[in-house]
């Protein structure tokens, strides 16, 4: 079985900061997306079970070599970086075209992606790739088994603790969710680490022309975040104090402090709860 894992290089969302005066992001340090470890672990487990090879790919500039080299230490067979200078500032569409070309060149039985990245998180990639490659897909996967006939049994995470189980025929593409497994450590000087040291990250330049580098969406500028304006609310008519309240998301919230008998209090709580309990 040939498994491809798609990884992403992101700016660390924990330490990145937004400078209001220059309207730009600062403190940008590129790290491996936390979801990458889960994807890689799932790929390694499947390879241990069924044999074959595991190939890590990523669309990234040269800085991306670090995360791909890391996958070799964990035991990936090959690591390939895809890049073209036209991809600077490209949207998800163009990036997905680059990935598609890379995947088609390598050939695959199973593609593992993260369902969404931790920076912009558009969730577009898995379904779009499935559409173009015309293969079965499932996103937000929280549990994965393979049965005897090489069929994938995938548990999809829905909202509020609901799950759905799907059966997929290989070749397929899956979007994994954080928490699907427990990522391993690559011990220093272990056998896989030694082998990884000897391997090199390969490079592949996708041939992008006018048709598949079509910029469909573009970010105009960055602004400080605020909760959304309620329907029928005129911002210009608000006083400064109300504006501050809106920024904190406190505008229009009714508050009640109740002091009284426990029975009356319990009735009040029940009235609040009854809608959520439906």
């Amino acid at each position, binding site marked *: 079985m040939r498994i491809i894992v798609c990884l992403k290089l992101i*700016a660390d*969302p*924990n330490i990145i*900061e937004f400078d209001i005066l220059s309207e730009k*992001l600062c403190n940008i340090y590129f790290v491996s997306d936390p979801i990458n470890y889960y994807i890689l672990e799932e790929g390694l487990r499947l390879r241990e079970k069924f044999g074959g090879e595991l190939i890590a790919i990523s669309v990234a500039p040269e800085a991306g070599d670090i995360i791909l080299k890391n996958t070799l230490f964990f035991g990936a067979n090959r690591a390939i970086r895809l890049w073209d200078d036209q991809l600077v500032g490209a949207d998800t569409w163009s990036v997905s075209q680059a990935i598609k070309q890379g995947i088609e060149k390598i050939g695959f039985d199973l593609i593992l992606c993260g369902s969404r990245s*931790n*920076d*912009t*998180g*558009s*969730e*577009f*990639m898995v*379904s779009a790739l499935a*559409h*173009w490659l015309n*293969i079965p897909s*499932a996103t937000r996967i929280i549990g994965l088994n393979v049965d005897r006939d090489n069929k994938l049994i995938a548990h999809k995470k*829905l*909202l*509020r*603790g*609901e*799950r*759905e*189980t*799907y*059966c997929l025929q290989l070749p*397929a593409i899956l979007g994994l969710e954080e928490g699907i497994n427990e990522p391993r450590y690559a011990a220093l000087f272990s056998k896989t680490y030694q082998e990884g040291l000897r391997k090199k990250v390969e490079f592949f330049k996708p041939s992008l022309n006018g048709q598949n580098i*079509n910029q*469909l*969406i*573009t*970010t*105009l*500028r*960055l*602004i400080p*975040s*605020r*909760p*959304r304006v*309620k*329907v029928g609310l005129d911002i210009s008519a608000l006083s400064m104090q109300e504006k501050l309240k809106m920024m904190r998301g406190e505008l229009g919230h*009714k*508050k*009640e*402090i*109740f*002091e009284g008998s*426990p*029975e009356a*209090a*319990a009735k*009040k*709580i*029940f009235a*609040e*709860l009854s809608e*959520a309990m439906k």
Partner: protein
Amino acid sequence: MSHEVWSFIESEEGKLRDTAGKMAAESCRTAKIFDGEPCGVIFSSHPFKVSEELKWYGLKKIYFFRSETPLSPEMIACSLHYAAVKLNPQFILFANTPLGVEIGSRLAASLQKGFISNCTDFELEREKPLARKSIYGGKVDALITWMSSPPYLATINLSALENVKTKSNTEPEIIHNEVVGMVSHTQFIEKWKVSLSKLSLKEAKIVIGVGKGVEAKFMQVINMLGELIGGVVGGTRIAVFSGLISVERLIGTTGKWLNSDVYIAIGISGAPQHVMGIKETKNIIAINISNDAPIFKYAKLGIVGDLYKVVPSLINIINETMKKGK
């Protein structure tokens, strides 16, 4: 080009899901910003009657797609593709649910149009539509615009959606459509729910938080309340240290950050580290004996009283109503 704003209204087994009304309201809100016509799109494999509820959102048209076979995201995206090519709406909006995102991305891929997911707001600037999206974990908002021609595709953040009804009801025009078949590659097996004891705090709809004010003997009652209302029991760091709850159930900066509809804080004063974890919650109900506890600043309903009396009487009331219901 028509100026229709389509919003995808999710239904399940002939019934509307809880995002349905919010999406209908969203369609009207967006239509107001861009001077368009609000429309709804419903797919159903069951016979379906547009209920009284949907009339209160001011929708002008409802495109209804009826299918004999069970629907899959591929089929819905394929039918929406043909409908969008034929009628050319200005917007197609989805809720940011697993189904909505999957259909949206597939539709964007087949139509070759721009797709912006998890938007919180729309704006009009120099006659160009802009979408506001929160990135890097809410640290900053990005203003994104579509470079492609309409339809503009977007999914809307679930916490941004609001259920706003109009004052008068309107009878939407219902237009019946055919589902264009496309066989799904994925085979659906079953739908199930995670049991309450294994459910993560982040996924729970109702969460009960316990703090220093709760004694270990009383946890039995709290757990009973949790089972009755379908809520998961979590708590503060002090509750973890005193053995009331396990570490996975810690709420706060170093624990879990909630995303629930209701949070009931029992015997919690509201230290900043704890409040950090509950700020995304929509409704906070606090029970505390001291009336100057900081938690009351954040609570929608604050009860000043003895929790050892309030909680048992709450359980009594719930039990009574359940009996009446049966």
